């Protein structure tokens, strides 16, 4: 009897996490918290740097473009973080028996790859993606991040128009042969749960192997797994947060992202103002963490290109990773485009682009330098509040929704 009730207590716990998707705002709050933890340990969450690390490692191994002295991914915090996000999403999908290899029509794979490539270019030109530049950049009180967000918005709107046009005029791109492999069903697929537990154990071993030698990495491994798991369970999607109000009018993704931004904003501001975790570095450089010199022209241009890419791919820097782990093969193509194009953008597109722009158009803008901490936080909160009110009003009235 005793044993039986314990078993049901554990299975209740399991059900809580894996029987249903979580509300996006739950995911947003948890991701915001973990982002603060990452900043406490070292530096905030970022996505595009990890892809770039993967790409550079591949090109170095192949001897392309003379790329050398690349940090091995096993020693790259953000390269590892991205791998762990994929694994975390893999675990989340397996535990919920939602994992399957979902192979879309060829046209969709091509769109995935192109979208990934555009994200790589946008992240290089804008100095940040939806994670480092937006989800971490806005709470970091970076003026550039606000402009990057404007660019992301515009890019998303243009690409959404394109997708709607494609649906009417080129429906063949998204039709054709598709395949779904390894799926579980009601009575079958218990192997998915077991594999989920095995992956968790493997990750614990990986994290343990870093403890004592590289404690920061050990924590990045653990937090990365949680990030991926939370994203998959709550379907935390930054593309949707920008796109859905203008498509179906749904506001839940946007509200989830806003929740995460508010938590991040509080945590980041405290860390910066008090110089928490500064260690040997100066408090000033702690303040300037994740404030990139992309103000005011680089950020919106890069954000625009990134916005196009993520909307066509159907996943941003992190959305691509967790859908990768869930088995969405379109996003495998997007990840491949991202990692292969990123080093090329870094070495061949970015230098020329920077030369084109006057120096005065790309500097670090740390908002508290101009208006102080209090007003910076108030302004960011006001923008988020307006965004919230807009998506709620739009959801009710459908004024700006296409469907």
């Amino acid at each position, binding site marked *: 009897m005793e044993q039986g009730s314990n078993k049901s207590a554990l299975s209740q716990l399991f059900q809580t996490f894996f029987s249903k998707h979580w509300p996006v705002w739950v995911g947003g709050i948890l991701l915001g918290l973990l982002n603060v933890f990452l900043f406490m340990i070292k530096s905030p969450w970022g996505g595009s740097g990890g892809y770039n690390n993967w790409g550079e490692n591949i090109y170095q191994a192949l001897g392309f473009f003379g790329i050398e002295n690349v940090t091995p991914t096993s020693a790259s915090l953000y390269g590892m973080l991205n791998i762990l996000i994929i694994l975390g999403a893999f675990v989340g999908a397996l535990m919920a028996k939602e994992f399957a290899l979902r192979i879309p029509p060829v046209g969709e794979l091509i769109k995935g790859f192109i979208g990934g490539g555009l994200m790589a270019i946008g992240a290089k030109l804008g100095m940040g993606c939806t994670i480092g530049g937006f989800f971490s950049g806005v709470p970091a009180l970076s003026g550039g991040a606000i402009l990057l967000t404007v660019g992301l918005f515009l890019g998303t709107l243009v690409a959404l128009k394109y997708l709607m046009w494609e649906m009417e005029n080129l429906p063949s791109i998204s039709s054709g042969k598709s395949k779904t492999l390894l799926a579980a069903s009601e009575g079958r697929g218990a192997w998915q749960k077991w594999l989920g537990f095995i992956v968790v154990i493997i990750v614990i071993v990986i994290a343990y192997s870093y403890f004592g030698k590289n404690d920061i990495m050990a924590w990045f491994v653990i937090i990365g797994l949680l990030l991926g798991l939370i994203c998959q369970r709550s379907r935390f999607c930054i593309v949707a947060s920008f796109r859905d109000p203008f498509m179906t009018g749904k506001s839940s993704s946007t509200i989830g992202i806003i929740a995460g931004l508010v938590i991040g904003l509080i945590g980041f501001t405290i860390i910066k103002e008090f110089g928490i975790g500064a260690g040997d570095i100066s408090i000033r450089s702690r303040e300037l963490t994740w404030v990139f010199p992309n103000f005011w022209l680089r950020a919106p241009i890069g954000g625009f290109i990134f916005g196009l890419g993520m909307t066509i791919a*159907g996943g941003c820097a992190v959305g691509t990773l967790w859908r990768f782990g869930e088995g969405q093969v379109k996003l495998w193509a997007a990840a491949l485009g991202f990692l292969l194009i990123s080093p090329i953008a870094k070495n061949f597109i970015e230098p020329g682009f920077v030369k084109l722009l006057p120096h005065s158009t790309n500097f670090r803008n740390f908002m508290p330098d101009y208006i102080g901490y209090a007003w910076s936080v108030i302004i960011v909160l006001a923008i988020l509040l307006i965004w919230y009110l807009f998506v709620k009003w739009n959801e009710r009235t*459908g004024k700006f929704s296409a469907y």
Partner: protein
Amino acid sequence: MEVKIDETLDVKGLTCPMPIMKLAKAMKALESGKVLEMLGTDPGTKTDLQPWCNKTGNTLLDESELEGGVFRFVIKKK
């Protein structure tokens, strides 16, 4: 209860936002009261569909999981 299916929409293999976009287009072409069956594989559709139906006034009559990881949704046009 088995309802008569007037049209089938196959969005297998497609990922967000394509299933909802295709659904919106197919529903637009459907006459009022007709029933559409959608077959898809994106787990995201499960959470997206009910809010979309609430908003558009269409009715989600049934959802089930078929063999091979396929989700089946039956939707009646307003």
